[in-house]
């Protein structure tokens, strides 16, 4: 398991989806959860950075777990996910400050993600509000953006949740680039996805 976490953590960092100490990953095993340690460096994960604690129940390991442990738990309880990736993708965060939803304009993004909801909350870190809102959305969408904060993606494996995260950032880069070109869009493909 450490290898999986290390591989994805490193890729998330190297592809700029997280800053040095941001983001967190988890997987669910029955009624247990393995989550990255609070303040760990995803690009340099070691054994001591993987914290196992209860899915519903706290134990002493909770004090080492990621600040987002509550949100990860809520997602597992409210969805069928077995893995969660939380990242801070830069272009997606920028777009989240302008939009209520992100609609891909590229083919791959459109096929894979259709639409990415953007939600706002007063408290965005370790937040009870997010624990309430996210599970519902993530049972319908693969990935959700929290305005100004970052993404939460679900999957059956961390690689899958990582894929949605990476894809989201690609989608957003393309949107940002396209907008910066100031041209008129030739294809209004995104309109069909607004009802997704």
């Amino acid at each position, binding site marked *: 398991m450490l290898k999986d976490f290390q591989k994805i953590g490193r890729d998330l960092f190297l592809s700029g989806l997280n800053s040095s*100490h941001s983001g967190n990953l988890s997987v669910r095993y029955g009624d247990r959860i393995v989550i990255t*340690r*609070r*303040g*760990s460096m995803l690009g340099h994960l070691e054994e*001591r*950075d993987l914290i196992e604690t209860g899915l519903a129940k*706290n*134990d*002493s*390991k*909770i*004090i*080492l*777990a*990621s*600040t987002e*442990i*509550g949100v990860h738990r809520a997602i597992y309880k409210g969805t069928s996910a077995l893995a969660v990736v939380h990242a801070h993708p830069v272009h997606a965060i920028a777009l989240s400050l302008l939009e209520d939803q992100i609609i891909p304009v590229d083919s791959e993004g459109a096929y894979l993600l259709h639409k990415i909801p953007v939600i706002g909350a007063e*408290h965005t*870190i*370790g*937040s*009870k509000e997010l624990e309430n809102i996210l599970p519902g959305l993530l049972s319908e969408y693969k990935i959700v953006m929290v305005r100004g904060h970052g993404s939460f993606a679900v999957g059956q494996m961390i690689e899958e949740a990582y894929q949605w995260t990476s894809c989201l950032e690609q989608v957003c880069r393309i949107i940002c680039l396209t907008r910066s070109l100031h041209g008129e869009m030739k294809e209004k493909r995104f309109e069909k996805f607004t009802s997704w």
Partner: protein
Amino acid sequence: MDLYGWFGKALRVNLSTGVIKEEEIEKTLMMDWLGGRGLGTRMIYREVPAVCNPLGSENKLVFAAGPLTGSNFPGSGRFSVSAKSPLTGTIFDSNAGGTWGVRLKRCGFDMLIIEGAASTPVFLSIKDGAASLEDAGELWGNDVFETNHKIISILGKDVSVACIGPAGENQVKFAAIMNDAHRALGRGGLGAVMGAKKIKAVVVSGNKKVRVAHPEKMDLMVYESDKWIQASPITSKGLPEFGTPVLVNLFNELGVFPSYNFQGSQFANAGKISGEAIAETIYAGRKGCYRCPVQCTRMVKIGASTIPGPEYESLWALGPECGIDDLTVIAEANNLCNQLGLDTISTGVTIGCAMELEERGLLKTGLKFNDAVGLLRAIKQIASREGVGDLLAEGSRRMADSSGFSQYSMQVKGLELPAYDPRGMQGMGLGFATSNRGGCHLSAYMVGPEALGVPKMVDRFSTGGKAGLTITQQNINAAVDSLIICRFINLAVSEEYFARALSAATGVDYRPQDLHRIGERIWTLERLYNLQAGLDSSFDTLPPRLLEEPIAEGPSLGKTVELKPMLAEYYRFRGWDAAGIPTSKKLQELELEEYSC
């Protein structure tokens, strides 16, 4: 003078003459030393000769609140007491939560200085600024709970009592001062200083409002700090759900949970006495100090009574350190220590040492590891100084010295070590060795970086970089102890917030680096005092077991504390010479030239 945060007033009580008078505290003094430990250190340095007998009338007790005490800032309901310690001979500060500090402040005082010694037992009552010394003949001999109860039934529910029990009266070298019945100014034997002065209790109650200079800025800091406290799993989940014993399983797994007087670094039955075990068996609710959202105190059910449960350190000292794995016994022993007014850590570690000496056939103490009856008996004997208790009441260093086997005493500068095996946490070892008050985990609190990842996780086995980190931690914690804020809040909220809250409370502009500098000045002044008291660099060491005996098994296998290189670096980084004496350049830099060794 228009003051915010502080009142600028001290109350000085001379027990020898009975004279009580109010004094102004200069604003610059408060700005430089903040309150709590800082103000206490400065007062003790100025007024108590370093070479005096700590149990003589020359010693003084300085009770001090801080500029945030009485504000809404989380974890700020604390106060500290400073004196020369009868256990360590060092300058010493101890702090506690509850409500006492807030009530002292509401009397309109930042500081209370008690000097001299009474000829017959007295207690001091301060009500809304009016103070009187009362006869405590009836209270003398009462335990902490009885004393608390009697005083409250006479003076009413709106008072807070800080008092001593039989241990303090009998000048046990590690007697505690207990406030609000169960909160302890535990370490260093400050209760014995009260006992020697024949002052049974200090009772406070007041209604003065503590004025905040910028209430809207303070509200923002309270809001932001609460947000961090809620976001951190330590302060929002771990401590509220399991209390400080949340650390038991964690430290046992790391192989830094000492047992049997530090002969082991793990305890086979740790799971039976962990925070989780308490939650599943004897847990009966939680409580906390004034204005604290964490509420880390466990209430536990033992037989028909519900009592405050042991904190992590107490649980360890009265448990694994003595080979005990029965939660009920540990909770009873903890309650007994509170009732008699004993420091739980020093009590447990001294008894643990006596058990090892007995088992090795080096000293007749009648105590054996895992002997619950013996443990409870020894606690009572210590408090009353009966039988072997008289020897144990002197602390583990003097007890082990008396048998000629001082190497079995697990202490630094006479202060018994707490629940961390530093062989598996090198910075903790350096912190213990260099702490101005002796073997204390709170001065550097390397638990943060070496185990909990606060502010960042560092390699616990590495010695590299530990000197600098230990110094930074010691400095900032000295400032935090002066504000005065609970160490656990410190795990979620950074000094940037403390500086802003301090500025909002006082109207004086402070930045985080100012707190570091204030902390360094406090640390240095404490060091100068200790040097004057004769505690040179030869005291900056650890028990031989930790330096020479590698851990025999577990995750910290083969480790000892590599103190020498860390210590040399520590002196250099502190700007001290090779003998551990602050250089004149350093004193100049800190504007402490007027103070010298």
